[in-house]
């Protein structure tokens, strides 16, 4: 079930990227795809009826823990995603200062 949500998020993000022209909305679309992928990663480690993977806090008698590696991976991916999003937004700001528009269809100094 969570995988369906992930694919839905990725599809929504891709749809945003293909349909919207506003640069900020493009960045939002990428973030949505990113969230979909991250959700996918973190749900890979889910184990039904398991406890949080904290070694020292595990209640007595708990036999199963959620798989912690995907959480570490997701965290890294989130950090990287944050860096790319910040960089992209910075470029959007600069582009707006130079060209006075956020319409991707008009920001076409480089073509042909």
């Amino acid at each position, binding site marked *: 079930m969570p995988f369906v949500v992930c694919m839905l998020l990725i599809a929504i993000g*891709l749809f945003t*990227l*293909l349909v919207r022209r506003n640069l900020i909305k493009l960045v939002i679309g990428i973030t949505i795809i990113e969230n979909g992928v991250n959700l996918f990663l973190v749900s890979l480690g889910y184990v039904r009826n398991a406890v949080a993977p904290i070694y020292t806090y595990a209640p007595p008698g708990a036999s199963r823990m959620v798989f912690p590696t995907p959480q570490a991976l997701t965290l890294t991916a989130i950090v990287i995603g944050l860096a790319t999003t910040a960089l992209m937004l910075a470029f959007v700001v600069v582009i707006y200062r130079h060209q006075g528009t956020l319409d991707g*269809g008009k920001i*076409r100094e*480089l073509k042909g």
Partner: protein
Amino acid sequence: MSGIGSGEGFWNPIVWTLLALGVLGLAYALWLQGRRTYKRGTEQEEPFLSGERLPEEGSHIRGEHLYWGFVAGLRPLIETLRAFHTGFIGDYIGWLVVVLGVAILVVML
């Protein structure tokens, strides 16, 4: 050391260079055999462009006009290609999706 084998082909740049130098030398020797009609200080020294005498201030065919006929002949193709490079970010993403789709399709087969 120098050559590379490629299955059936043969490529050795040292041999090639020596051959090229030999051919150049041969051409030079042939050229030396010709009649010498060149005279200094005559019309022969004047630069011509397509049979026309060059204007005084000189003239330079700019790079963008080189191969004009070739480009003109290919114009439909090149115009299509230029129109394809729209510079619109949405198209970039669209083509990435197309490449992805083709890749997945081929892998699935």
